[in-house]
């Protein structure tokens, strides 16, 4: 039963993210948009670049999708509505999403095109910038919950959501999460104006559809993780648990996507400079502050 519910939730969630993404980039809310786009991509030819590393080219979209799906496995929508409650859930989230990097490098390398390759390697640079900023705020969340299990993490916020308890961590995690899901303004690997699509440039037809799908799942996953780690997951009055989860996740998604279109794309050097000169010291301060708080104000 819960398996069916989870698959349903995933489908609806991905669909909603696709609609929101369309809204963010075209400023139009088209409810049927994703269906039509999917059908159109199904009808499109799947071009195989003549000189390619076919293994990489074919595997990359699938790896992206699988990595993103795996990371969703530890997201609880409600008590009991979770694929698997791992004792190392928060760490597992990172482990699964590390393969996004691998997928993008493969996608960039595979078709033997300059734009894709630059895009793929750029994402490695981007990872160097965001990786620590994803892990260190999660550390403080786990410190408060005294567990890496996502269920326990949500339960630990029963009295006070983490966004209030550790706002600094929330800001860092949200920004780093956006960089991880490469949404604008961090869309360095698949920038349209800079790289003509970058890692996505050579993908057409069904392969492109899988790639886009993986991307949507990735955005959904990052938004869900933000909700679980900082916005109290399913916690909330009046409405049923799953409804709160859904509302929060979609709100976070919409904010992430909308925020991006206000800003010009960040260049890689700037991103790295921010992350290492500002972000990581702040994350260390955050760890220290939360450490003190956990000892002094056991909330």
């Amino acid at each position, binding site marked *: 039963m819960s398996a069916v519910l989870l698959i349903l939730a995933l489908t609806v969630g991905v669909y909603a993210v696709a609609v929101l993404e369309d809204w*963010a*980039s*075209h*400023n139009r809310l088209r409810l049927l948009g994703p*269906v*039509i*786009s*999917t*059908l*159109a991509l*199904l*009808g*499109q*030819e*799947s*071009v195989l670049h*003549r000189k390619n590393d076919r293994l990489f080219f074919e595997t990359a979209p699938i790896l992206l999708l699988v990595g993103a799906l795996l990371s969703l496995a530890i997201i609880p929508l409600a008590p009991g509505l979770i694929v698997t409650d791992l004792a190392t859930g928060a760490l597992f989230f990172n482990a699964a999403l590390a393969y996004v990097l691998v997928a993008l490098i493969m996608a960039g390398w595979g078709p033997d095109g*300059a*734009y894709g*390759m*630059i895009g793929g*390697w*750029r994402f490695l*640079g981007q990872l160097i910038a965001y990786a620590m900023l994803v892990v260190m705020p999660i550390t403080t969340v786990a410190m408060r919950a005294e567990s890496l299990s996502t269920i326990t993490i949500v339960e630990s916020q029963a009295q006070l959501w983490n966004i209030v308890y550790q706002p600094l961590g929330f800001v860092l995690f949200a920004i780093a999460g956006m960089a991880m899901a490469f949404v*604008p*303004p961090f*869309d*360095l690997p698949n*920038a*349209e*104006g*800079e790289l*003509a*699509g970058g890692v996505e*440039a*050579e*993908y*057409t*037809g069904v392969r492109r559809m899988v790639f886009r799908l993986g991307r949507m799942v990735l955005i959904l996953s990052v938004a869900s993780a933000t909700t679980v780690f900082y916005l109290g997951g399913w916690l909330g009055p009046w409405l049923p648990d799953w409804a709160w989860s859904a509302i929060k996740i979609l709100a976070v998604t919409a904010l992430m996507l909308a925020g*991006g*279109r*206000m*800003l*010009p*794309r*960040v*260049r*890689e*050097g*700037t991103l790295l400079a921010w992350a290492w000169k500002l972000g990581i010291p702040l994350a260390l301060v955050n760890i220290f502050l939360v450490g003190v708080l956990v000892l002094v104000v056991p909330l």
Partner: protein
Amino acid sequence: MIGARETTEGGFFSPLQNIISRATAQRLSCLVVPGPELALASGLDLPAAGLALAAGPRQANVLLLVLPLSEKLLTAASIAYAQMPRPRMVLALGEGTFSPLPEADATGPLTSEGLMEATKKLRQIMAEGIFATKIDDYDAPALQTRIEYTCPMHPEVVSDEPGSCPKCGMFLVPKETSTTSDTPSPHDHATMAASRPAASVSSAEFAHTADDNVAKYVCPMHPEVTSDAPGNCPKCGMNLVKPDESEGHGHHTHSHSAHADSEKTAKYVCPMHPEVTSNEPGSCPKCGMFLEEVTKAGGEEQHDHSSHASGKEAAKYTCPMHPEVISDSPGQCPKCGMNLEQQTTDDEHDGHQSSGHDHGGNALLDGLIGLEPGFMSMIEMTDGTPRSSNGLQMEWITAPFGPFFPGLPGGLTLELELDGDTVVEAKTGSLTGLQDPLKNGPLAAADYVAALGVQMPLATIAYRLLACRAIEVAGNTFATPEIKAIRMATLARERIASHLSWLSQLGRQLGLKAVEREAATLHLLVHAADPATIQALEPRVKKLLSKLRRTWFLSRRLATVGALPASAAWDGPTSHDNTAAGRFTARLDEIATSLNEIKGASSLSAPTLADIGTATGEGHAEVQTPRGLASLHIKLESGKVVSATLKTPSMRHIKLVNPLIEQRELADALVAVASLDLSPWELNT
């Protein structure tokens, strides 16, 4: 439909195929040739017609041609068309031919209504079926390729046949090149010959020499590989060479000939056991190492091991710390006690037969002994290749940015040599460009004005005005102040439109989707509007301007990019700050001032020529176009233009591209190029 996908007759999936067809008709994304800014300048409202802009040919299913187009652009478009996935369509607006491209699926006049009609037709065709039982393959001359073999490390090595690189011995990699490439690579001849290591001996020559001597075929890379019959080296697959014959090949002045020369006097010595010498290559009976070849010249540097085998008479020993200490025999330095090192008095270091190729005097390699034969030296490979600014040689790529690259003006080709993410060098060019309107003889003055206007689709009014003024000066007729005022106001309107189009392009490049959209919409509203309409639009334009000024991080992003040297010949919009940010704010300011200039005007219209009769004379005029100062010098003879010299701002500005982007990150380089607002139409092709 020409670009349909293949299907079988009335298959099981046909209902699904119908749905897919209809969905595809809803999702048209187009690649505009030459570029979206030209569609804007022609007043085409792509979003209103439901056409999305594709990032590249792979994401497009409609090729939108804004005619007329130059031949080079059409060739580039035919390549782009071939890259588009099926189903694909051609939509041609305007008048002109587009020969290498297939027949258009829809055509129309170059207006927004024309676009609407044509798009409707496209949708119908798409919806009726993107699947066809029989599909035609698209072919164009530009797509004819010829397989060449080239060395991955040494791009200058090109060969018609597979084989190995004579420089590093790597396998040559097949590469496709266009047969229509009008620039035959300058090193074609030299490298063709070089890429065939001495083995390019024709069979006739074989027949002729085969019985002369005990023919031995040696691998140029692996001297130890010898064979009585021609063939390939079992180690590296290179063709075996007949040592004597290679002498005859003048091209191989590098290692091979030296190799062959030495063959006659060659002795092979074991690097470990100097007493083992042989007249033939092989391995040492004591230790199994490959024997190394020793010649008079090369023997000397085989110091410790083989120096006794041959000429050591010139050898001197010296202390590495105290160069003044020189001795005839090895020993210790009397000053510091270090072991003396052998100093070779011979400059020709061609002693490394083991590695089989020329080192070009790489001092680093000398002194490395005992390399396995055939070992591919990285030092040699990287030697002489250009150095990166950071000292690391990452994969160098040459990537084309243009002619249809999002965020850059269409028709402008920008070929960047990239070192990782850093631009090393740029080659710029234009696929469309200035054509002399007078190439078919003198033109009537009014016709010249029209012709120049048509040639500059991105700044029609400015160039019409320029022609009018120059001709009027030549004819000694002057426009009335009222006409002058109208002309200036119209120029101001064009400036607003041009800058809005530029903003839209910048928005696209930086990922500011909202700016891209809003600027394009405003451009469409403004570019042909009357003063009253513009007045009404003013708040909306101002809102966009203030939003852009307030956009967080935008000016900071631009401030680090594109700083022009003080001496640069820049006369476009500029402010106290000579960076991309300065040019950006200057354009915003110009939009605001131009809005004020229009306020007083009664009406706006494209400049027309005052009646000059059949005047004769010379005239010179200058106009501040949206991109900078353009000047025209004109010669009139009885009312006809006989010669004209046009100087456009882009001609000067394109020279700034290289200094602006060298050693910059790719993202910055593209912003810097965009900040110059080059127009490919103003460039010489």
